[in-house]
C-alpha cells in the first residue's frame, strides 16, 4: 500500500501551489506512466484520505495513463514497445525489448507520475496567473 506515500507526496506538493490561486479545487489530473506499479483505485482512495483538512478536500483525483515509449540505440527504433497480454489474468505489460531488432531498449516514457493540471471552481470574471504554468478558462 505505498499509494499512501505517493498520495501524501501529491498533496504536500500541491499545497504551496494552491496558495497562489483562489477558488476551490474540483479535479486534480494525474498522469501515470504504464510502467508505474500503482493501483489507480488505491491511489484515489489514499488521496481521499490524505486530502482531508486541506484545500484539496473537495477535489477528485483523475488518473490518466501515459503509454510506454522506448528507444533502441542499436537500430534507431523509437515508439511503443510490444505488449504481453493475458486477458484471463488481466494484464498487458510492455516488453522492454526492441520490437524491430530484439535488442535492449531505453525507456523514454512510461515511468512518469505528475500533476498535469487542476480544475478550479472560481467566481465569474476572475483569472489568475500561476507560478508553475499558464492559466486558462476551461
Amino acid at each position, binding site marked *: 500500500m505505498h499509494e499512501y506515500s*505517493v498520495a501524501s507526496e501529491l498533496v504536500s506538493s500541491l499545497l504551496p501551489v494552491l496558495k497562489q490561486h483562489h477558488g476551490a479545487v474540483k479535479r486534480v489530473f494525474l498522469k501515470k506512466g504504464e510502467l508505474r506499479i500503482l493501483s489507480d483505485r488505491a491511489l484515489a482512495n489514499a488521496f481521499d484520505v490524505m486530502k482531508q483538512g486541506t484545500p484539496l478536500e473537495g477535489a477528485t483525483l483523475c488518473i490518466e495513463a501515459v503509454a510506454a515509449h522506448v528507444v533502441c540505440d542499436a537500430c534507431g527504433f523509437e515508439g511503443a514497445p510490444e505488449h504481453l497480454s493475458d486477458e484471463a489474468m488481466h494484464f498487458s*505489460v510492455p516488453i*522492454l525489448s526492441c520490437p524491430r531488432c530484439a535488442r535492449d531498449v531505453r525507456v523514454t516514457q512510461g515511468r*512518469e507520475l505528475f500533476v498535469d493540471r*487542476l480544475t478550479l471552481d472560481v467566481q465569474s470574471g476572475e483569472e489568475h496567473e500561476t507560478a508553475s*504554468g499558464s*492559466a486558462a478558462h*476551461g
Partner: protein
Amino acid sequence: MHDVRFSGEDILARQLELAQANHDLFRAKGVRAFSVMGAIGSGKTTLIERLVDRLRQQDLHVGTIAADSAGDDDHRRFLSRGARSVNVNTQDDCHLDAHTVSHAVESLPIDDVGFLFIENVGNLICPADFPLGTESEVVVISVTEGDDMVRKHPKIFAQSDVVVLNKLDLADAVDVDPQRIVADYAEINPHGKIVLTDAKHERGIDELMSALDLPCTNTP
C-alpha cells in the same frame, strides 16, 4: 471553471533527487551498493549472508542495511557474518525510501565499506516505485511461492534486471517446475538475468556473484 496547468514535475521528484544524492555519495566513496527486494520468506537475508561471506573471505569490507517493520533479527545475522550493519525499522511503512537510506548510511563507517547490501522490507510490490540510489536492484523470489509468480506480478518482472529464484532444493517438495518460472521471465523480460539458487546449501551463489559483477575468489 478554470484550468491550471503544471510544469510536469514528477510527484516523486524529491525521492528521485534523494536517490541521486545517495548514488553520488556511493560513487564518491567507491561503494558498490545493491538493493535486495522480494517477498517475505523468499530468502533475502540468507542470500545476503552468503554474499557477505564470500566478500569477507577476500578481506573485503561489507556494509548492510537491514530493514524490517520491527525487530533486529536480520541485522544480528549480518553482524555475525562480519558486516558493518545498520538496523532500520520502518514500522508501518511497507518499503524503504531514499531518505531513510541516507540516514542509515550516516550510521555506517562509509569510508570503510566497499560493498553495501540494502535489504528492503519483505514486500514484492511497494519497494519497486522507490529507488534508493543503488547501482542495481535484485528481486528475490522462491519456488515455494508457486510457479506462477512471474505471471502474477508481470509489471515488476518486466522491469527487474536481476532476479534470483531461490530455494531450488524445495522445488520437488512443493511440486514447482523452476524452468516454467525461467521461461515466463524470459518472455516478459528478454534482457534480464535470472539466477537459480539454493542459498541454504550454497548453490548458485557464485553465479549470483558474477551476475552482480562482484569479485569471486575463483576468478583471477
